[in-house]
């Protein structure tokens, strides 16, 4: 079983913390995944125009890379990358006509017929490690931290690529419980954070994000766990503005689930780069006495 790892562009720059925490966690758990030596941007958004095949070439090329490297599975961290790659994979598996056209266009590559499975990091954890084993490996459980899994849009939609059925948040819930946190469910776990609407919206005006935060605060959530740099930006980085504008009643710091995992496994907190999160995230960790933060 060979697993290739696809980081995606954002994890090398703005979301370094998501990646470094994940890789450090994998190392602690003795799991080996290899970052592909050649990969390109997946496009981040799966093109919805039926005939717009050129916008599928980007993600498909990464699937080709995984196949070239003999991988059975391609694992991703970023929710957007997961969604784009998984849906492109579905296209190549099910639409033989478009698959043929795309393969013929990419005459510089081997043909790709959907041989590689695209999985999300949470699925990797469940399949390759298991929640019980993770529980055993925890050195500093996040006792007393009330966390809510925030899935956003792209982990579960559409149904044929969702990491689990809509309305179910068991993967991240199991992980958070395994690392000792208290999971608090809330209504907006799969409501949109505003996604790229933020580009057209004045700073601090993102209603969708404000609603998610309010819903979490009302439910007594102390921290949100996410898997997506865009969600982290929309939810995490705008909170001061939201408070200023009275859009939210209280802030709810946002973490990447891998940062929480890494902390619990006893990884050096510097690796988690909490300074890249919202400042309140660091304050919360200190307040809860959970590992000396940055």
């Amino acid at each position, binding site marked *: 079983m060979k697993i290739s790892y696809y980081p995606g562009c954002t994890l*090398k720059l703005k979301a370094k913390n998501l990646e470094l925490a994940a890789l450090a966690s994998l190392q602690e758990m003795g799991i080996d995944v290899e970052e592909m030596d050649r990969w390109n*941007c997946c496009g981040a958004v799966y093109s919805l125009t039926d005939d717009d095949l050129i916008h599928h070439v980007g993600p498909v090329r990464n699937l080709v890379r995984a196949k070239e490297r003999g991988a059975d599975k391609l694992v991703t961290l970023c929710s957007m990358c997961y969604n784009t790659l998984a849906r492109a994979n579905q296209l190549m598996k099910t639409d033989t006509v478009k698959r043929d056209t795309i393969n013929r266009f990419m005459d510089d590559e081997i043909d790709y017929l959907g041989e590689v499975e695209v999985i999300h990091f949470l699925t990797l954890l469940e399949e390759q490690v298991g929640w019980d084993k993770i529980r055993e490996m925890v050195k500093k459980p996040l006792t007393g931290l009330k966390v809510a899994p925030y899935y956003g849009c792209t982990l579960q939609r559409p149904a044929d690529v969702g990491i689990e059925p809509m309305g179910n948040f068991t993967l991240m819930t199991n992980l958070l419980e395994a690392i000792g946190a208290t999971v608090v469910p809330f209504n907006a776990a799969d409501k949109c954070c505003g996604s790229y609407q933020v580009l057209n919206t004045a700073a601090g005006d993102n209603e969708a994000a404000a609603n998610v935060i309010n819903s979490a605060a009302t439910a007594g959530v102390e921290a949100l766990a996410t898997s997506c740099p865009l969600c982290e930006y929309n939810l995490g980085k705008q909170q001061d503005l939201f408070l200023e504008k009275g859009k939210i009643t209280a802030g709810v710091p946002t973490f990447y689930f891998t940062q929480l995992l890494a902390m619990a496994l006893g990884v050096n907190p510097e690796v988690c780069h909490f300074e890249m999160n919202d400042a309140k995230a660091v304050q919360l960790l200190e307040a809860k006495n959970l590992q000396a933060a940055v």
Partner: protein
Amino acid sequence: MCETAKQPEIKVATGDRAILPEGAKTIPVYVMGKKYEVPETLTIMKAMEFAGFKFLRGAGCRGGICGACPTVYRMAGDYKLHFGLACQTVVQPNMYLAQIPFFPANRASYNIEEMNAAAEAIHALYPEIFRCVACNLCTKACPMEVKVMDYIAALKQGQVEKAARISFDCIQCGLCASRCMGEIPQYHVAQLARRIFGKYIQPRFEHLVSRVKEIESGKYDPMLDDLTKMDQEELKKRYVEREREPDLSTLGEWKPKETQYL
């Protein structure tokens, strides 16, 4: 009666007529759609000159490194496009070719002195790199086999060193930009990446800096004076007797017997 051997008729090139070498076989090539018969051993550049073209632009080093002569060609009956340098590519029968000596690719204005090691500067100067759809037409067009798509991908990810190394062989011919769906000026972007890498990321050669200081301080002046005053015999003697680090000696282990000059 003497018979004088008939002198072979000597042909002279007169500018509007090329000389065909004795026994040369010619093949048809189509330059901008017009057919010319050219010797089959010539490069595209020479073949065009044979046909009477004179290069004012589109020729440079003639050695495959200056990037002045990018050429697109196609073989009759086939839709596939091929790309190469006119000075390096030998003609083939029924080649349909055209040249792109210059492509109007966007070149951002910047002051390298006022930059730093951040990839964000490249993103700001060339935001069009985010239009890349990984079609790979750029890589396919590159006459130097540079993985153009890969270095654009690396720059999107902020990996300046990786992009600098991948793009090293680029000769700035512009074929990549001419094919790009996203209208990216790949070779300009790569040049910026290499400049930032060389100036702000790559480690400095400190030993070179200290050696230059030593020279400027006059440390080697007495030795040079001695040498200039020596007669040839003494110079020869010194040269033959010079100490030299043996090949394959272990790093840091060998020292000359004469240490006064170290």
